[in-house]
C-alpha cells in the first residue's frame, strides 16, 4: 500500500526520543505540520529506560507523560511508529521521502487490556531491558509506552500464538493480515533525532563484560532500579541474584580512548554520580560505591551535585583508569586491578558488582544514512556549510544530557521552521 501525505511546508522528524519529541512538538505548536517517524513501537527513546534524572533525581516518566499529552492534544503532529526512512531526495524546501512501516498486527482498537499477552506463550529477548529478561510475543514495550498499544512480535506470526492472541482480543484489535507499508512524503525540512546507543562493552577485553556475570553496564544498572524491570527494582548480582551492596563504577569505559571511542561522552560522570545515590537509596548505610575515574567531569552547573556525592562517606573515589578485571574463584566477585595515581599505590579490589559507565555513540552508522549527511570524526551529525534543510537534534548531534538535548532540539525546530517559511513565501 502506498500513501501520500504532507506537503513541502511540513517538517519531518526522524527519531522519537526526548529530542525528536521536543523538536516535533515545538514545531507543531508553532502551527507547522509535523511528521514524527520512530523506528521502535513507542516514543521516548533511551530516556524511557532511565530510572531517575540527574541532577534533580526526578523520574523521567513524569516529563514523558507531559510530552505524550502534548502530542495527543496537537492536531498538527502525526506520529508513525515502527517505521524507518529508506530514501530522501531533493533539496531544502522540497524533499521527497520514502518510509517503510513495519506491521504491528494490532490496530487502533487496542485498549492495552493485556489479554493477548496472557494468551500467548513464546518468549523473546526484552530489548527495553537490554535483553536482561524475556517478554511475551504479544507485549506492551513498557508500562508508560506511547502509543498505549500492544505489539505482536513478528516471530509469532504464522504460529499458534498468533491465533491465540487474536482469539483473546475482545476489541477486534488483532489484525494478522497487516502488511509492511511504504509511505511517500513531501516535506520542506528534515530533523535527525536518531539519538545514541551504548558503546559495546564487550570490546573492552580487559574488563571481561562478555566473560564475567557481575560486570554490567550503566544502562543495565538503570533497568535494575525499575520496579517493573528485570530484577523487580532490586540491585542484584546476575551471577547469584544476591544483593550487590559494594559496587564499583568504572568511568570512561570506552570513551576518551583511541582504541574505542575517541570522544568524551560527557554525561557518564554525572550518570555514575547519580547511580551512587541509587546504591544508597536501596541499601542505606550498607550500600558502598567506589568510582574509578581519570578525572570527574561534572560539567558546569553540576559541580554541586558532585560535591554532595563527595560528601557521602560511603562513596569513595579512586583516581585511576582500571587496568583489568579478574573474577575471584568461589565468590564470583569481580576484582579490579590497577594503580591509584594519587600516590601510585597498586590495588586489587574485590567488589560485589562492577558497573561500566559506557560511552555514547551515534545510533546510526555514518554510512547508513539514507541521504548524504555530514558527520564529524565521531559520527555525530554536523551542520554543512551553506544553506540546508536538514538538521540534527539531541544526541544525533553530540553526546548530551537531556537538558542540553532538549535545548538543542528546540533550536533545530526553529531552524526547520525558518527553512519552511522561507520556501513557502518565495513560492507565493
Amino acid at each position, binding site marked *: 500500500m502506498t500513501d501520500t501525505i504532507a506537503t513541502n511546508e511540513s517538517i519531518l522528524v526522524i527519531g522519537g526520543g526526548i529530542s525528536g519529541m521536543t523538536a516535533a512538538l515545538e514545531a507543531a505548536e508553532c502551527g507547522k505540520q509535523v511528521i514524527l517517524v520512530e523506528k521502535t513501537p513507542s516514543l521516548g527513546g533511551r530516556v524511557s529506560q532511565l530510572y531517575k534524572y540527574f541532577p534533580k533525581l526526578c523520574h523521567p516518566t513524569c516529563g514523558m507523560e507531559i510530552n505524550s499529552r502534548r502530542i495527543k492534544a496537537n492536531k498538527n503532529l502525526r506520529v508513525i511508529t515502527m517505521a524507518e526512512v529508506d530514501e530522501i531526495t531533493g533539496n531544502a524546501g522540497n524533499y521527497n521521502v520514502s518510509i517503510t512501516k513495519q506491521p504491528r498486527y494490532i490496530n487502533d482498537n487496542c485498549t492495552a487490556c493485556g489479554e493477548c499477552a496472557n494468551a500467548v506463550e513464546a518468549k523473546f529477548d526484552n530489548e527495553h531491558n537490554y535483553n536482561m529478561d524475556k517478554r511475551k510475543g504479544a507485549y506492551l514495550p513498557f508500562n508508560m509506552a506511547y502509543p498505549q498499544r500492544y505489539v505482536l512480535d513478528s516471530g509469532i506470526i504464522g504460529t499458534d500464538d498468533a491465533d491465540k492472541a487474536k482469539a483473546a482480543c475482545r476489541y477486534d484489535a488483532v489484525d494478522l493480515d497487516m502488511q509492511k507499508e511504504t509511505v511517500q512524503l513531501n516535506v520542506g525540512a528534515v530533523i535527525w533525532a536518531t539519538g545514541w546507543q551504548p558503546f559495546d562493552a564487550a570490546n573492552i577485553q*580487559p574488563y571481561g563484560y562478555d566473560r564475567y556475570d557481575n560486570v554490567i553496564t550503566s544502562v543495565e544498572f538503570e533497568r535494575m532500579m525499575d520496579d517493573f524491570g528485570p530484577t523487580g527494582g532490586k540491585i542484584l548480582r546476575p551471577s547469584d541474584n544476591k544483593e550487590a551492596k559494594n559496587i564499583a563504577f568504572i568511568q*570512561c569505559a570506552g570513551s576518551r580512548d*583511541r582504541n574505542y571511542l575517541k570522544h568524551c561522552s560527557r554525561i557518564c560522570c554525572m550518570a555514575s554520580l547519580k547511580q551512587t545515590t541509587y546504591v544508597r537509596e536501596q541499601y542505606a548505610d550498607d550500600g558502598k560505591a567506589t568510582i574509578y575515574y581519570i578525572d570527574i567531569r561534572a560539567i558546569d552547573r553540576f559541580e554541586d551535585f558532585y560535591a554532595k556525592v563527595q560528601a557521602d562517606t560511603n562513596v569513595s573515589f579512586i583516581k*585511576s583508569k*582500571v587496568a583489568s578485571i579478574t573474577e575471584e574463584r568461589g565468590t564470583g566477585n569481580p576484582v579490579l586491578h590497577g594503580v*591509584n*595515581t594519587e600516590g601510585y599505590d*597498586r590495588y586489587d579490589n574485590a567488589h560485589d558488582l562492577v558497573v561500566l559507565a559506557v560511552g555514547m555513540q551515534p545510533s546510526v552508522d555514518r554510512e547508513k544514512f539514507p541521504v548524504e549527511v555530514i558527520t564529524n570524526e565521531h559520527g555525530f551529525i554536523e551542520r554543512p556549510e551553506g544553506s540546508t534543510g536538514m538538521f540534527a537534534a539531541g544526541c544525533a548531534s553530540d553526546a548530551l544530557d537531556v537538558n542540553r538535548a532538549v535545548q538543542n532540539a528546540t533550536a533545530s525546530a526553529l531552524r526547520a521552521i525558518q527553512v519552511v517559511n522561507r520556501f513557502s513565501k518565495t513560492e507565493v
Partner: protein
Amino acid sequence: MGNLNTTMIEKYRNSFLHEVEANVEEGEWVKMCMQCGVCSGSCPLGPHWDHPPQELFMMIRAGKREEVLTSSSMWMCTSCYNCIVRCPRELPITHIMHGLAHYAKRLGLVPENQQTEKFAQLFWDNLTNTGRVNELKLGLKLYFMNGFGEGIKMSLKMQDVGLNMLKTGRMSPFELLGGHSIKDKTGFHAMLQKAKELEDAKIAKHGA
C-alpha cells in the same frame, strides 16, 4: 660521556621535557600522557619498578632529570606491550622506556650493576664482533656475568638444555673457537664506525 651529560644539562636548563623530546626516541609523546595510570596497572613487572611509566612521565614533566635518568625503572621493561595496547592515547610506552634507557646509557647515567644494561652490552659486543650472534659464547658470558661462582651454578642448572641443543644441532661446540661470521667483516666494521661517527656528530651538534 660525563661531558655530554654536562652539556645537556646546560642546554636544556629547566626543561627536561624538551630535552627528552629532542633526544629520546619517541620522546615527543611524553607530553600526551593524561596520567590515567592504565600502563602502570597493566605492567606485569609493575610491583618491581621504582617508578611505573606514568609516574616517570610526570617526573619528566616535573623536571626531575637526575631521578629519571638514573632510575632503574626503564631498564625493567620486558617489551610485553600491554601498556601500548591499553594506553587510551596510543603512546608508544614500551619504545619510550627503551629510548630513556638508551639515552641514560649515552649520558653515562646507568645505575651501577644494572643487569639489563649489562646483558645488552654483552649482546652488542657479541653481535658486532663477527656480524652474527654467537649463541654459545653469549650464553656463557651471560651465565658468568655476575661472577665465577654464579656462572658455575647457572651452567649446571642449564646443562640439560645446552646438551639437548647440541644434540639436535641447534648449537655447535665449534662456535667456541671463533664462530661463524658474515662474509665482509671489515666492511661491516667500517659501516658501524661510520654510523658511530654520524651519531656522535649529531649529538655534538645538539649539545653545542
